[in-house]
């Protein structure tokens, strides 16, 4: 659609910029339709939610520091685990990836902005209201939802506090926001690519987000359906999940995990895209197996719809169902393995340097793979009956979500922030942040494998004495990791405020339109004319 404009028109970019800069003051952020502004808003929301969800994790680790109930009541502890999970999944990880997509997708495909800028504004501004509503439940009579982020019925229906209705509404809003954001990303990628930017030339971050957006559109309505059925069960006399009325509590789990399992990949596929951008840059060597990376991403996405009941090996499924879900689940390790092998081959015989983004990317590859190993173990159905609902599971999903998804987001920040702001971050502080976080996060989560294997269930506010040592170690790691992210906040603010001037290329080995075709920082409206594609 941009074929009429030619890229020889060299003076185009800065002219517009004179009479079309951002509005002044707060209204710039409220009314903005600019992909860079909206990306920034998403990233800040995500950071605030990370600290909010993180402070709840601190309460959890404080109570679990030693046996006995010292600080909070069991009901409040359950509110903390529930809200921590919801806030981190929907508030920290997902908006961070949407923020990165907003900043990067148009710049990576040579588009001037997102395809649907007003929708973009709306999909962001729904979220602060959704999370305020969710957070407000903590101050209501009866307290916040306390049934875990998986909100299994009937604990979340008949036995739930009144505030659950606010939780349901908040989840609806988050779902609407995600679906709108996804529509926007798909429309942008399919329609706004610069001439010559064929699908198989797109950076992997764009590819992984395209596939993620389809996953979101497919499963967010399923989540909306689940919470709507909860709502009608609670107030309008239906019995979808109430056995006494002829309903089925296990069906809730099937519906939830039909959303929940693809959701897991929604939180990791964009991370794969980020790592696939960073590793080649610092190995100074092109990504190994680009097309196999695309196919592996697509295979993971398709498989993600067919494995949901591996979260339910103890609900008493027919044995044929358990066998099928076991086979399908362990099969996912094949395309995931392909990705890891490709990254390692990209490094092989490269010329590597280890700036902060590369450190976080290497940390991602190693620790995400450890999470993948425990995932393979969990996929083996007969043994999963012993791992299920223990700290082994908690360790597993924190390895893939914290040292996986979150590490990729932090890596992306260090990698692209010089481009966004025109300022280099302080390399020494970045390296301190990496080593501090990495040591702390392993002290935090590695002992949880031992706790789970030796018999500690998840979501308990207090435990028997045999679990005391590792819980104390884990808590110490937790406090250190939490503090490291406050340090990260300092680095972020310091980098935005100033720092060494970044070059346009930023990194010696960087490739891609955003590094090769745009200055650092890029103009408010970039690529008003389509860039040349090699």
């Amino acid at each position, binding site marked *: 659609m941009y074929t009429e404009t030619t890229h020889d028109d060299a003076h185009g970019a800065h002219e517009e910029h004179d009479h079309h800069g951002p509005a002044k003051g707060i209204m710039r952020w409220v009314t903005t339709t600019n992909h860079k502004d909206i990306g920034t808003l998403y990233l800040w929301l995500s950071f605030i939610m990370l600290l909010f969800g993180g402070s709840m994790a601190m309460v959890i680790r404080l109570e679990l520091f030693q046996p006995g109930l010292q600080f909070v009541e*069991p009901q409040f502890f*359950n509110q903390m685990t529930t809200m921590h999970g919801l806030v981190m999944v929907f508030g920290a990880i997902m908006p961070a990836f949407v923020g990165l997509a907003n900043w990067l997708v148009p710049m990576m495909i040579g588009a001037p902005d997102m395809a649907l800028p007003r929708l973009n504004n709306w999909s962001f501004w729904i979220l602060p209201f959704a999370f305020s509503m969710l957070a407000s439940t903590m101050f209501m009579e*009866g307290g916040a939802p306390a049934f875990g982020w998986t909100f299994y019925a009937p604990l979340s229906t008949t036995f739930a506090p009144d505030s659950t209705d606010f939780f349901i509404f908040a989840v609806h809003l988050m779902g609407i926001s995600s679906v709108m954001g996804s529509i926007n990303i798909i429309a942008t990628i399919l329609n706004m690519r610069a001439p010559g930017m064929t699908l198989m030339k797109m950076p992997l971050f764009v590819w992984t987000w395209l596939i993620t957006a389809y996953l979101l559109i497919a499963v967010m309505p399923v989540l909306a359906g689940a919470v709507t059925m909860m709502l009608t069960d609670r107030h309008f006399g239906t019995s979808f999940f109430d056995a006494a009325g002829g309903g089925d*509590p296990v069906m809730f789990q099937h519906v939830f995990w039909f959303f929940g399992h693809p959701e897991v990949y929604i939180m990791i596929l964009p991370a794969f895209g980020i790592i696939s951008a960073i590793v080649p840059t610092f190995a100074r060597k092109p990504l*190994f197996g*680009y097309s196999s990376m695309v196919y592996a991403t697509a295979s993971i996405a398709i498989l993600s719809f067919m494995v949901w009941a591996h979260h339910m090996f103890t609900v008493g499924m027919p044995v044929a169902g358990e066998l099928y879900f076991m086979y399908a689940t362990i099969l996912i390790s094949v395309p995931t393995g392909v990705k890891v092998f490709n990254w390692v081959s990209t490094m092989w015989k490269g010329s590597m340097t280890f700036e902060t983004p590369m450190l976080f990317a290497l940390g991602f590859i190693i620790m995400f793979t450890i999470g993948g190993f425990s995932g393979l173990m969990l996929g083996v159905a*007969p*043994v999963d009956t012993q791992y299920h609902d223990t700290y082994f599971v908690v360790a597993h999903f924190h390895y893939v979500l914290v040292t996986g998804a979150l590490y990729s987001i932090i890596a992306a920040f260090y990698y692209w922030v010089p481009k966004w702001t025109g300022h280099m971050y302080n390399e020494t502080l970045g390296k301190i942040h990496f080593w501090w976080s990495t040591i702390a996060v392993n002290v935090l989560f590695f002992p949880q494998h031992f706790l789970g294997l030796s018999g500690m269930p998840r979501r308990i506010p207090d435990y028997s004495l*045999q679990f005391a040592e590792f819980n104390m170690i884990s808590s110490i790691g937790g406090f250190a990791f939490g503090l490291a992210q406050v340090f990260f906040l300092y680095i972020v603010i310091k980098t935005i405020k100033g720092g060494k001037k970044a070059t346009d290329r930023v990194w010696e080995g960087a490739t891609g339109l955003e590094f090769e075709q745009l200055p650092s920082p890029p103009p408010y409206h970039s690529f008003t004319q389509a860039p040349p594609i090699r």
Partner: protein
Amino acid sequence: MALGVLASLLATPVAQAEYHLNMTRSVTPLGHELYGLHMLVFWICVAIGVVVFGAMAWSIIHHRKSKGAEAANFHESTTVEIVWTIVPLLILIGIAIPATGTLLELEDAKTDADLTLEVTGIQWKWKYNYVDEDISFISSLAQSSRDVVKDPTGNEHYLREVDQPVVLPINKKIRFLFHSQDVIHAWWVPDLAVKQDSIPGYINDSWALIEKPGTYRGQCAELCGKDHGFMPIVVEAVTEADFEKWLASKKSEAAAAAASAEQEWSMQDLLAKGETVYQANCSACHQASGAGIPGAFPALTGSPVATGDPAEHINTVMNGRAGTAMAAFKSQLNDVDLAAVITYERNALGNSVGDTVQPSDIKNAR
């Protein structure tokens, strides 16, 4: 100051119990198989890890710019892509074959079962019913754990001890049937390698053949509300002869209880008994003082039910309140316990109605 607290905590170990790194080695044949499978997959992961991380480490050490490494330019090879798709697939088949066998065995609870134990999850205790023996009782967290929640130092089995353990014979195939009266629970005893959800509206099964006598401890594994962490399981595995003796003693206990239900009870005896029953069954929600938790669980002190018509009070306790967390205690408690706890609620916790409810009133209401 915080450092000082930390140092003192580390210096005086709070735990007496031994910690473990690996999966519990259970005392059932199936448990041995699960352990073997767990270790098989674990070592496969270790082997893959050594290869992948080894290659990464080699690359990080040798292929770095500071050592003058020049970047090669290879970036594609269909052959290696096919190899590292096929080889993991073969490894997975190697895992799937033994896993399938074990799973089929694990799921076969019916064949040749010698004894059936029905397990009902109730917020926050377990009810056990020996189906062929007409013995049933409720097992909940022991008072010795409840008393020390602020500082459990020294209680070796803190949160893993119960008032009445479930007793099972060794060398018999025991079939468990699981269901729930309220929310979803999960019965988990690592030593028996049994973990199964108990779900309202469903009956799930599982099995164990215990090889040696002993006390085996576990707890609820599925979040089931406020006191999910306070819902332990204790299994006493005994020889068959001891099991028969235990059955006989349980039956005579039941007979004595039935006889006492025929008598008229005094207010004093009802209140004493009622307090025990209240603390074990009601205080988790309505609180030890009867004050409840505003917005979640109503207060009993001054409540219209606990101070009004005894018939309505009996009905509420026996049949529960549909659509709320208030459970039906009809099948959980016997006539004496129900009479005692209702009398207690009417004449303690700040209430003083002055009437007694007798076991015979409960019997008539059943």
